């Protein structure tokens, strides 16, 4: 049974974390960080699927490892690299290995990653992937054939970008995702509470738990990069200025304080947080305690 599902259905505020698998089979450092900083601190841990189209060890393998290490993974599946046969097959494999939560994503284009000449698949997309999961939960595959044992306990979620401009296409797609079977959302990074509040008002009619995405801004350079390159994300001056003013040694403390304040502002508007620490896992326990969501 998914603890994430239980918490969200009971209306309990839920915090999830995230791990980016390494390129290679040595996962000792990643597992150690997970044990030290995420265990007991977050309810579930997302495992990214060749994040940013950069080839790494797979999200299925790491999700299974996490299950055996006593974590609850959120297995991220993108549609970039696999067609409907491979994806359905992986969903069943994951279930067999104890994976219950899936985050269904379209996925970045291969041209953004480290194998830019790769052919992209996109046989399915986020909406049809959610439809696939719902179909399989009901004991059928996409061809309509009966499954010999259905993955009934799967709990599927999706992503949304609340800061997109215009936001209406995002809301329309969010609605399609809910209709296709999404039962929770983890959002792209948010830094503007007012914009998020407006988004949540519009998304309210869908009555679906939304975990606000928190990406710790580590430096002014990172903020600049996100503002230029990351779709639908804007880091305002209120965050950039204190970071610029801080010395390099003080930066982590200043960054964590800024993120904790942001989370306090966002908390009344959402049903949980999804913290993407991106290498700063060691600050996650402090961030959660300062934000008052422990």
């Amino acid at each position: 049974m998914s603890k994430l599902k239980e918490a969200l259905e009971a209306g309990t505020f839920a915090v999830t974390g995230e791990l980016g698998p390494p390129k290679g089979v040595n996962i000792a450092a990643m597992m150690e960080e997970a044990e030290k900083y995420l265990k007991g601190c977050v309810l579930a841990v997302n495992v990214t699927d060749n994040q940013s189209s950069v080839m790494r060890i797979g999200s299925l393998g790491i999700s299974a490892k996490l299950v055996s290490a006593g974590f609850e993974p959120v297995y991220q599946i993108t549609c970039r690299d696999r067609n409907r046969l491979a994806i359905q097959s992986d969903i069943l494999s994951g279930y067999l290995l104890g994976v219950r939560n899936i985050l269904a994503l379209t996925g970045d284009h291969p041209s953004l990653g480290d194998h830019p000449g790769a052919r992209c698949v996109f046989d399915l997309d986020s909406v049809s992937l959610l439809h696939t999961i719902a179909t399989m939960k009901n004991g059928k595959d996409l061809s309509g054939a009966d499954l010999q044992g259905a993955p009934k306990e799967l709990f599927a979620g999706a992503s949304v970008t609340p800061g997109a401009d215009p936001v209406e296409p995002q809301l329309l797609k969010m609605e399609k995702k809910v209709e296709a079977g999404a039962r929770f959302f983890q959002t792209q990074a948010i830094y503007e509470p007012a914009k998020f509040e407006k988004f949540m008002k519009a998304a309210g009619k869908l009555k679906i738990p939304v975990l606000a995405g928190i990406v710790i801004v580590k430096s002014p350079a990172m903020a600049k990069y996100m503002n230029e390159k990351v779709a639908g994300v804007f880091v305002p001056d209120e965050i950039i200025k204190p970071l610029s003013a801080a010395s390099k040694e003080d930066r982590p403390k200043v960054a964590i304080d800024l993120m904790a304040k942001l989370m306090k502002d966002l908390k009344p508007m959402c049903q949980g947080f999804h913290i993407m620490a991106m290498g700063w896992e060691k600050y996650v326990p402090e961030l959660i305690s300062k934000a008052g969501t422990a």
Partner: protein
Amino acid sequence: MIVNVAKPMEELKNLLADYRRVFILGCGGCPLGCETGGPARLEELKAELTRADRSVSGTQMIDFLCNKALVGAQLRYQVPALKNSDAVLVVSCGVGVQATAAMIDLPSLPANNTLNSQGMQGLWPSVERCDGCGDCLLHLTGGICPITRCAKNLINGQCGGTHDGKCEVENTRDCAWHLIYEKLKALGKLDNLKKLPKLRDYRNWDVSDRERHTTRWALEEDQLYQAPKAVGKQ
């Protein structure tokens, strides 16, 4: 030649469900060779639609709908009829439907499915492209093709990579789904987004051997190639 086949009449009636007054526009290029267009098919469609309780506000043939300039110039003479129309049914390949959609403010709906591009006689596309997916969705997407304009060929709306209306792959490239959203909003047809099929059937994308070899215009099989061979045999 661009090979296209007629959509089944039942499907055409479905995609015309929301439109009562229909203008029928035919391409005088490839559909003639494919026997899926031309004055006779326009007349046939007119009769079928009239029987299906639609009023046909006008019909016109234009040589090569893939030539947007020609489409714009010719349709100027049809402004009164178009003003009395709810949609334009375009009897052409996917390029012609997109070129028409780019030139008028009415929904442009495909009457045909496009299978294959062969030879390219007369083809003069601008940014409009057709991949011959064989299952045309242009009636739902404001006449803008998500298969050829979206870098990921998505059919369920924009991905998370769209940024200021541009694609994550190339910042000068328009996000197809942003264009579709804007166009559908202008047409008052945002509801179309909910009607898109969740899954695609890719079988029609690869064409059968017969369609692959279609050279009906050049008559290569019958006349140019077969005739000398026959001569040689004698």
